[in-house]
């Protein structure tokens, strides 16, 4: 297993390197001078030149790239153009909020997705199934900022149950997690329904029943575990998305987060921050997918062998 994980990590190195290179090229190719952006629209030209020199932007591209790579390898992600802070600090500051939001909304998606998905499959083609299917589609299609504001209006303004904004407490996490998790929940519901239906018609389910096992055991011990595999795949993708794609949720609920940070950095052309953020989300994605694969092999012994 350890070897497998190592192997996987080694294989991801070229991917990360590739994406960093590509991002580097894109950003530098895009119009707009970070020095000008820092100095402001009406800055005197000498000031802009000075800044450009300070930021190393006057060096040839390949040199900037080499320096950047070398620094990254040493774990030095440089300083933010925008506020001269070490990039790593800026990113780390956002991580807890991002992680907790991603974790809770994933949890929410899992719980809701599995319950509804199983229900829908068990009551296949009955009214409940149709209701669940439409609900799951609603979840998938409901625009997030609309849902977010609606949640605030209902739960925060009218019912005064939950806080709308903030990063600290668990209560502050509930509404945004719900808003963010709804899409995942909808997707998972559909996914779980499908795979449960597939598994439920596998021949081995008949064997289980022939053994006299109760329906509960058949469903929850065997069917669900077999159905887990495809669902876990989706989950991996979802977590990735929640880590980096929560901009709307972060904005509506005034939360910290990597999503917003990256968008801001792109707008400010804060190159070191963009690069580091991509590196971090890339690493996270690799780890998440690795976890998914490892949990695969936990769920499905067949994978263990090929791994």
């Amino acid at each position, binding site marked *: 297993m350890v070897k497998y994980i190592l*192997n996987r990590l*080694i294989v991801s190195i070229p991917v990360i390197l590739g994406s960093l290179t590509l991002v580097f090229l894109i950003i530098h190719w895009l119009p707009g001078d970070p020095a000008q952006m820092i100095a402001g629209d009406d800055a005197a030209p000498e000031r802009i030149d000075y800044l450009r020199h300070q930021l190393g932007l006057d060096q040839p591209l390949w040199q900037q790239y080499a320096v950047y790579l070398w620094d990254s390898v040493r774990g030095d992600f440089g300083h933010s153009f925008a506020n001269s802070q070490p990039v790593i600090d800026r990113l780390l500051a956002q991580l807890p909020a991002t992680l907790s939001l991603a974790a809770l909304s994933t949890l929410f998606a899992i719980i809701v997705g599995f319950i509804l998905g199983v229900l829908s499959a068990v009551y296949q083609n009955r009214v409940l199934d149709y209701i669940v299917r439409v609900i799951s589609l609603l979840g998938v299609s409901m625009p997030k900022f609309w849902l977010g504001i609606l949640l605030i209006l209902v739960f925060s303004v009218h019912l005064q149950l939950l806080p709308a904004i903030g990063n600290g407490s668990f209560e502050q996490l509930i509404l945004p997690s719900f808003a963010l998790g709804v899409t995942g929940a909808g997707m998972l519901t559909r996914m779980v329904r499908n795979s449960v239906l597939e598994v439920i018609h596998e*021949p081995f389910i008949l064997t289980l029943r*022939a053994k*006299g096992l109760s329906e509960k055991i058949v469903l929850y011990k065997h069917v669900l575990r*077999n159905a887990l595999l495809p669902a876990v795949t989706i989950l991996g993708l979802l977590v990735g998305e929640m880590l980096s794609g929560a901009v709307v949720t972060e904005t509506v609920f005034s939360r910290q987060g990597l999503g917003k940070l990256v968008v801001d950095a792109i707008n400010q052309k804060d190159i070191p921050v963009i690069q580091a953020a991509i590196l971090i989300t890339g690493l996270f994605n690799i780890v998440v997918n690795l976890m998914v694969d490892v949990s695969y092999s936990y769920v499905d*012994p067949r994978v263990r062998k090929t791994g």
Partner: protein
Amino acid sequence: MKPLLEIDDLSVDFQTAKGSLNAINKISLTIGTGEIVCLVGESGSGKTITSLSVMRLINYDGGYISQGDIKLDGQSLVGLSQKEISDLRGKKIAMIFQEPMTALDPIFTIGSQIVEVIVRHERISKLGAREKAISLLRRVGIPEPEIRMGQYPYELSGGMRQRAMIAMALACGPELLIADEPTTALDVTIQAQILSLLRELKDEFQMSILLITHDLGIAAEMADRVVVMYAGKVVEQSPVHQLFENPAHPYTQGLLHSIVTLDNVRGLKLYTIKGTIPSLSNLPTGCRFHPRCPYATDRCLSEDPPLQELNGREVACWNAERIDHLAAEFFGDTVAPTSIELTASEAYQRDAFQQASEQPLLEVKNVKKYFPIRQGLFQRGRTYIKAVDDVSFEIRKGETFGLVGESGCGKSTLGRVLLQLEKATEGSIHFEGRDLIQSGANDWKATRKDMQIVFQDPYGSINPRWKVGDIIGEPFWVHESLRGSVKRAKVESVMELVGLNPSWYDRLPHEFSGGQRQRIGIARAIALNPKFILADEAVSALDVSVQSQIVNLMQDIQQRMNLTYLFIAHGLNIVRYISDRIGVMYLGKLVEIAPTDELFRHPAHHYTKALLSAIPVPDPNRKRSFVPLEGEMPSPARPPSGCRFHTRCPAATALCREVIPELTLISPGHHAACHYPL
């Protein structure tokens, strides 16, 4: 004998989108304590549904018992709730399913799946259940059961999985064991092992067994009594000897007659029951068999015959008495050796056999096919699965060459290499003198025209989304760029040739029966008038009667189109019947090549001999005293040294362990690779 299971007037219906569908119609049968009853019948006749009804599992398939009663030990099962019946399942009645590959939950260990059922039904600690599971595994002949307990189904071979299934079924000492085609998915050698295991177990535990099969050879070997089903009805029920000696129902007669045995005269057309089993939604009136019955009268058309007592057995036929009388005549007609007639094909083959000696159509020299095993990033391709290892032989023009061997010995791989579906690792293949491996792309397309293949799995080998016409017409589309009505005309003529109704041009594959699908595969293969056809287990998946139809068809076409066949199968009866020469493969090597009769009469290799002895014989009087081949085939990734068969060979010596025997000529046309040929 006290009846253990009584099925009385049972009907089972299915709820479908188009209303309810009657799958089983008023069947009655009993099984006594300690008795083995075989339920036989063509595919789709309702055998599985009957067994599922006994378990009351039919409800999970959308079916329900609409009439009648099932009693186990006097207790009615029909009225029980699912919860109540689940207390009996696995405890008093246990079931073994058809497909050992898919009947086990892939993500739980064998052990936990056995323990699960013990814990469910018995007051026993987890540890106790584990002990018991281990002893069960040992009992069904699984070596090192402690290790196997912790393994997952995919880590076991088919035979071992089936044994595990049996262990699971036996776990709580059931009174009735239902075995639904327990060996169809397995090799002849493993099949023989499993069947003898079942018999032993029955004696040991005093169980009753309901054995479902469509292989009458197995029925003859195992059964005390046989129940024959046709289209959801029981048509005959009788003790095994009586049934085989004196079948009363025309369907039973037909079935018995379409079995290909070692006694079948080669070249003679096989007997088939005309037509196919009707679909449940479209049953004929009166006797359900009448459209296929040679004796059908007007009465059969309108009235459904009840199951009636006749000379110590039960038959459902209006003409039973008359046929009973006719039976001897009926058999005499075909079995008498005097009536042997060489078909044109056979005559032709004789000629061809002589001519061809100088001019092989296909010449295979030292072909090897190794599959690299990937083991992570850095050590790719260190080890190989040696699926085909140094094989040489030739096929002459117009002959049928049979290739036999246990599952996994490399038959298909060899076939795929011959057809260039897989690149040979080494060696040369010449077709009509042309080197196939070296030839370029243009040549390659021409070769495709000349060499065709009929696949084992009739369903898997045709695109489920395509219309039949397009499937058969694909070669025309590719090679002759035919479209539209031109293609249609050509396809229809081919369909005619293989006995498919041309008006089915627009149907989809799933709307055909297995036999018809295989015809589709054959039609596609012959569409371009090839010279050579590889039939890879082309009939293995089919029913006896359908099997005969297809074999007849293939021979027919061979004769008409001057074809050469390479016929791969593990059913030795059929291979014997169809082939002129046979090659026997073991673990990637050809171990024996001989003309058919010679091989069956004087097998030279010990492996061949074991194979031959494992064939079930459909004659209850000739219960075999076979020596099942010990153990299973070793992994082709790590083949044994020396003679690869030495691990299972009764005659193996130190020499066999060290020196690889060469394929040598031992009598005219007979080669064997054995240090100590028989």
